[in-house]
């Protein structure tokens, strides 16, 4: 796949860097802080798994990376440039976000896959291959996208983002609607892109085993703060903070139950 190596244009080795980032939203009882003092960085070609309880601010943090939301405090750098100084079309093409609730655009699956190239005036992608790569049957191409199942939509949404050829990929609960086997096909494909073209990935998940399988680094978020950051193996083997220890213990208990009640169904 033709893909310009990004390293030579980019002065910074850091794909993403947060510096003291905060986000505040108005609510009935005064302004409510949903992100506070988030700092941290991620190098090119690395996979960051982002975990934490529901409402911790994971989705919000992702949406700051492609400026779908603006930080109220601090700065977010992508390839060393603050997001607010980027050309927006360029930023959002290169920082691909698969949202927590995948939204299909009107038309067929093939139409959906063609949208990014139409927006950016690039040649049409090979829909057949894009679907195959995320583990979907290419015969779905001519189906109306609205008729797909939730898990199929998630995979089409990933394929649609990949047709933009991003160099940073943000996936928000991308496999929550998938069986184990389909989830692993998706994981393997993303891992392949990381290996073959140094894709940088932020992967949000509630599945701790997956966070461990996928990640090079892991951040734990709680109540709008990043409470622990570390190399994935070290994080799961020897968590440093009390919060992380408790979170992992609770998570493991949930995993051991054969079928945990679907309490983490997203809003």
């Amino acid at each position, binding site marked *: 796949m033709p893909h310009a190596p990004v390293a030579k244009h980019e002065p910074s080795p850091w794909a993403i860097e947060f510096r003291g980032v905060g986000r505040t939203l108005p609510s009935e009882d005064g302004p409510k802080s949903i992100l506070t003092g988030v700092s941290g960085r991620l190098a090119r070609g690395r996979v960051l798994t982002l975990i934490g309880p529901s409402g911790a601010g994971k989705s919000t943090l992702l949406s700051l990376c*492609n*400026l*779908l*939301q*603006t930080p109220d405090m601090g700065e977010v750098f992508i390839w060393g440039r603050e997001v*607010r100084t980027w050309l*927006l*079309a*360029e*930023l*959002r*093409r290169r920082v691909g*976000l698969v*949202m927590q*609730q995948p*939204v299909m*655009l*009107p038309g067929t699956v093939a139409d959906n896959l063609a*949208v*990014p190239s139409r*927006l*950016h005036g690039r040649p049409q992608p090979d829909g057949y291959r894009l679907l195959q790569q995320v583990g979907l049957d290419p015969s779905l191409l001519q189906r109306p996208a609205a008729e797909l199942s939730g898990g199929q939509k998630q995979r089409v949404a990933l394929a*649609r*983002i990949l047709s*933009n050829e991003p160099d940073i990929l943000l996936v928000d609960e991308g496999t929550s609607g998938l069986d184990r086997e389909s989830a692993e096909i998706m994981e393997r494909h993303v891992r392949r892109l990381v290996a073959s073209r140094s894709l940088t990935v932020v992967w949000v998940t509630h599945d701790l085993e997956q966070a461990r399988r996928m990640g090079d680094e892991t951040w734990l978020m709680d109540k709008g703060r990043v409470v622990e950051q570390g190399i994935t193996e070290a994080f799961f083997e020897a968590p440093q903070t009390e919060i992380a220890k408790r979170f992992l213990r609770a998570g493991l208990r949930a995993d051991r139950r054969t079928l945990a009640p679907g309490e983490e169904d997203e809003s």
Partner: protein
Amino acid sequence: MSLWTLSLTLAFVVAAMLVSLWQRLGLEKDMLVATVRATVQLLLIGYILKFVFHVGNLALTAAMVAVMTCVAADNAGRRGRGLAGRFWRPFVAIAATEVLTQGFLLAGHVIPVRPSYIIPISGMIVGNSMVACGLFLNRLRDETQARSAEVWTLLALGANPKQASRAVVKAATKASMIPTIDSAKTMGLVQLPGMMTGQIIAGADPIQAVRYQLLIVFAIMASAAITSIVLGLLTYPRLFNRFWQLLV
């Protein structure tokens, strides 16, 4: 019709006020105000039109059309719920509609260059354009809210405001033209349009009256289209902030 015979029709108003009193609707005062205002405004405009037609001055005619356009734009701006800003966006849309439509009628010698033609026909074009503005702005907001997930998805893929709002602007344009098209379809079957009725009562040949009415129907269809397209171009950027985030 003499003023004396006209004043007999006040009996209708009196009857309505009696109903209001009897049923304790509390509308008598409003009715009185409405009656007085309608009478004064229409009599006044009648004398003004008589004067303008008599003078036959084109500059004066243009000034009247300009006043109409401003009043219509102000009214449409009030109904825009903030999307169109206060005044100038509806003004540009209505003025463009009037200039293009009326300009075509005059340039093609469809109607003579006379105040007695230009002013009433402008009134209909401008009035219709004003209604189309209000409809368009309402629909644009509703449509954008209903389809915001789709718009956000396009933005996340790197769409600029124009690309991201294309579908909702199109839907709003379509919705704001439908009433005009529908009323054209039933024209003459359900309602006899006011202008035609007026001409026929005033003694015009119904066939002539129908021809003028058709002219109006066609001009109004074009007006609705021009208004929504111009207004769409002027307002879609206001759905977004400078970071291409959806605001509504």
